């Protein structure tokens, strides 16, 4: 009765006020991410576009035309495209059977193996490059084996600086993306669907082709798109393993900037790449929307079983061979090479790496590169966590149009290449503050690249918190602060740890942007490895291997630590 007596206006008042308050809160949360993205992403990219279209300050499309029709640019674009397609197809062919074994077959050591195959995904590109240099070079175990079998007349296999090396490294690098994404869905598919097809008279292959494959299509398409994106913008791997005529657009941007000092060319290449990446992303979005099938999923631990029959056991053995040969052996060879000295095995490389005062190549003691990496990595992690958590919270609070926009805006840096970011920093960050000489640029660039991963980790967890949990806690008498502490924090806390470990691994291993913005006297580990590899000499190579091993151990430790937390979206898209 008292409600009815109130004038209508005051009843509507609080609701409008609440909406206003919520809008203000969203804006407050978004302020920092917007400034961060605007300053360190949108502005540099705009500068690149402007530089590409108007090198002299006036719009001059002729430059664009000249670069696009340039034969060498076209050949780079063509190589970039076909190696990305080939890498993607190869990765799918190798990893889809692997996804079956790791998600549907039960065998001893499955859990450990699943964690192990994820390691390459977080390995720095420079480490992957070094590992394949070691694996495919003339002094590799492969050649040692050939000599042992065939004697001195054995041909020496040297696959360094070949397309084969690049493709193998890309498969190694992206194996986990497909295994985690496709295997993740596969382990949830009801096995009775395929069994139903078998009982209805379909052969094993036909049941797979007509029932399982169509149901896996969303995961396969998603992982294929990610692998394509990663290999299309591949930088570190191609820079180290490629050679003349085997450069991606990324590598060419780097070369145009650092060797040719041709900034218009670099800008146009960056522009070309940006357009290609955006096109690929939109095709991917359309593909995944179309392939979506509503289906009943089952618990993953009910779908695994021990292999039965010759075909299944053969598949298991085959996949184990692939995993050991392709995924684990490069890492093993990397460690082995780091221990090779002039006479047999020893700790020489490691000792020199950690104790030498002034490496001739690095201009600073190598140990300092380790310190720089850790310092930059931790700073970048803090920045990425703050920006990512704010953006994810805002996107959870506001469920309207803004959410989708923020969602997409934050994913763009993921698709944009690291080299573009680094190059953009270099040409744009003299205004409003001249940051170009500042050591701050390194953690900022690394944070920019890590932020999308933080958002991707936090957003699903934040959105999955059942509103009823908070309501139940409130009804039971918990104050809003108490609700946040008792409900939100325990759930999000683990996700925050995962995001932290993930961004640390990304920051420590970041190469493409860092190589542009790191100052000569402040190298990070990947930069140091690249410099060491660029110099002749067994000692430099050995030190590069030792440094790579250390870096691999660091990122793998971060990954395995977060894998134990089992919030588990790592490497899944």
């Amino acid at each position, binding site marked *: 009765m008292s409600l009815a007596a109130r004038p209508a206006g005051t009843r509507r008042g609080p609701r409008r006020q609440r909406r206003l308050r919520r809008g203000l809160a969203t804006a407050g949360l978004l302020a920092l991410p917007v400034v961060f993205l605007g300053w360190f992403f949108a502005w540099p990219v705009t500068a690149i576009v402007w530089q590409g279209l108007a090198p002299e300050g006036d719009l001059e499309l002729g430059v664009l035309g000249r670069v696009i029709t340039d034969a060498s640019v076209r050949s780079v674009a063509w190589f970039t495209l076909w190696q990305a397609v080939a890498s993607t197809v190869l990765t799918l062919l190798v990893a889809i059977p692997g996804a079956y074994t790791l998600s549907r077959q039960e065998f001893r050591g499955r859990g450990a193996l699943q964690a192990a195959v994820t390691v390459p995904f977080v390995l720095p590109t420079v480490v992957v490059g070094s590992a394949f240099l070691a694996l495919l070079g003339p002094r590799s175990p492969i050649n040692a084996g050939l000599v042992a079998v065939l004697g001195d007349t054995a041909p020496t296999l040297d696959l360094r600086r070949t397309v084969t090396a690049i493709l193998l490294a890309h498969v190694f690098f992206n194996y986990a993306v497909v295994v985690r994404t496709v295997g993740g869905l596969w382990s949830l598919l*009801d096995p*009775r*669907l395929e*069994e*139903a*097809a*078998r*009982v*209805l*008279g*379909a*052969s*094993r292959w*036909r*049941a797979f082709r*007509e*029932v399982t494959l*169509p*149901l896996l299509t969303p995961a396969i398409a998603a992982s294929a798109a990610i692998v394509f994106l990663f290999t299309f913008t591949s930088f570190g791997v191609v820079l180290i393993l490629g050679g003349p005529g085997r450069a991606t657009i990324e590598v060419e941007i780097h070369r145009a900037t650092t060797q040719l000092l041709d900034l218009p060319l670099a800008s146009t290449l960056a522009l070309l790449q940006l357009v290609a990446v955006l096109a690929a992303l939109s095709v991917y979005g359309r593909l995944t929307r179309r392939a979506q*099938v*509503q*289906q*009943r999923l089952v618990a993953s631990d009910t779908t695994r079983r*021990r292999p*039965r029959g010759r075909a299944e056991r053969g598949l298991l053995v085959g996949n184990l061979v692939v995993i050991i040969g392709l995924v684990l052996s490069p890492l093993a060879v990397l460690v082995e090479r780091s221990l090779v000295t002039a006479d047999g095995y020893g700790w020489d490389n490691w000792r020199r790496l950690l104790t030498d005062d002034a490496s001739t190549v690095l201009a600073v003691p190598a140990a300092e590169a380790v310190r720089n990496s850790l310092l930059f990595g931790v700073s970048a992690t803090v920045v990425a966590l703050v920006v990512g958590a704010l953006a994810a919270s805002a996107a959870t609070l506001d469920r309207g149009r803004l959410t989708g926009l923020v969602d997409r805006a934050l994913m763009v840096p993921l698709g944009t290449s690291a080299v573009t970011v680094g190059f953009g920093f270099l040409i744009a960050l003299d205004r409003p503050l001249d940051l170009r000489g500042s050591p701050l640029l390194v953690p900022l660039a690394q944070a920019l690249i890590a932020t999308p991963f933080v958002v991707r980790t936090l957003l699903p967890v934040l959105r999955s918190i059942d509103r009823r949990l908070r309501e139940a806690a409130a009804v039971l008498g918990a104050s809003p602060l108490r609700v946040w502490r008792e409900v939100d924090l325990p759930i999000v806390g683990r996700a925050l740890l995962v995001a932290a470990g993930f961004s640390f691994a990304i920051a420590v291993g970041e190469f493409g942007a860092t190589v542009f913005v790191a100052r000569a006297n402040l190298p990070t580990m990947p930069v140091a490895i690249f410099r060491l590899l660029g110099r002749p000499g067994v000692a430099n190579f050995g030190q590069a291997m030792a440094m790579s091993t250390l870096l691999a151990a660091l990122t793998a430790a971060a990954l395995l630590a977060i894998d134990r937390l089992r919030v588990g979206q790592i490497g899944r898209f």
Partner: protein
Amino acid sequence: MLALRGVTLAYDDTVVVEDLDLDAKDGEVLCILGPSGCGKSTLLRAIAGLEPLRAGTIHLDGRDLDGLRPDQRKVGLMFQEHALFPHRTVADNVGFGPRVHGMAPEAVRERVTGSLELVGLAGTEHRRVDQLSGGERQRVALARAVAPRPRLLMLDEPLGSLDRALQTRLLEELPEVFAELGTTVVYVTHDQDEALALADRVAVMRAGRIEQHDTPDRLWRTPRSAFVAGFLGLDQQLSVEVDADEVRSPLGTLPRAAVSEADGVVDRGDACAVLLPESIRLLSPSDAVPAGHLGVSGEVLRRRFRGDHLQISVRVDTSRIDGGPAGGVAGGAGPLTLQALALRDAAQPGGAARLAIDPGGVRLLEPEPAARDGDG
């Protein structure tokens, strides 16, 4: 005809079905009835070729199925929760079997139409399966299983995921479908009402073995073990002591000759007596105990309204029964609760009630170690 001999099945190291023999005659509906986890679904999967045999043989129409892959066995299996292909239409689901058997598109279409008509879903060909209701999904699954005209149709808990009303309706329709198909049907369920309503014969399964295999009527009249009786819903069981002349129960003594028993099951000593529901009658105050019946009196605990009748729970204090060797029978001391059916509200909770037990509706069985503890 389906014949299983000495079938043993195991998951890894756990034996789920052991040395099992079972037959299904041509065209009969055989229900395998048992609690969850007794191995009945695994048995179906083994017949379909989805689980390997650890030992034994399976013959279908005289042909050994050993070594045949699931797609070569020409059996139909309707899965629990149906396992419809979510990315295909109704017609694609139903037509899958005929199509992979290499039938021409026109023939496949005819077969799809026919199968959907059989299950009462004509005209739904182009619907997507995620737009179907639970009952429709169940029917599509049945149509898909029968579309390739299997020599044997197997159904695994087909009504398990449906609500009560839908179960009742499908329970009435299924016999017609089975009759029209004419194939041998093996139907797995844990619901005795389903089994008794559908089956020509029922095999009661327990912990990987067949406990009893008989027609529904004979199963109900003469359960061979306390487990079978209990699983059929005959849960009024007493521990009794038997000798050549009489059966001593906590409720009183009955002449041995009046009580029937499964062939040669109990000679003397401890036994389990199952009281069929119709053997217990509520007497009105004026009624005398009929000749040959056992009269007991007790207190009405509660009445449960069951629509067309009332179920009266009567507590009988056995220590006050004259001539009842209450102390002598294990588990027989103390109060017992009996259920009786009544048509009118003849008894009020708290009031006295008299019951008459017809010895003709009492069955003597081998005592069940587990069941005995739970008795009384």
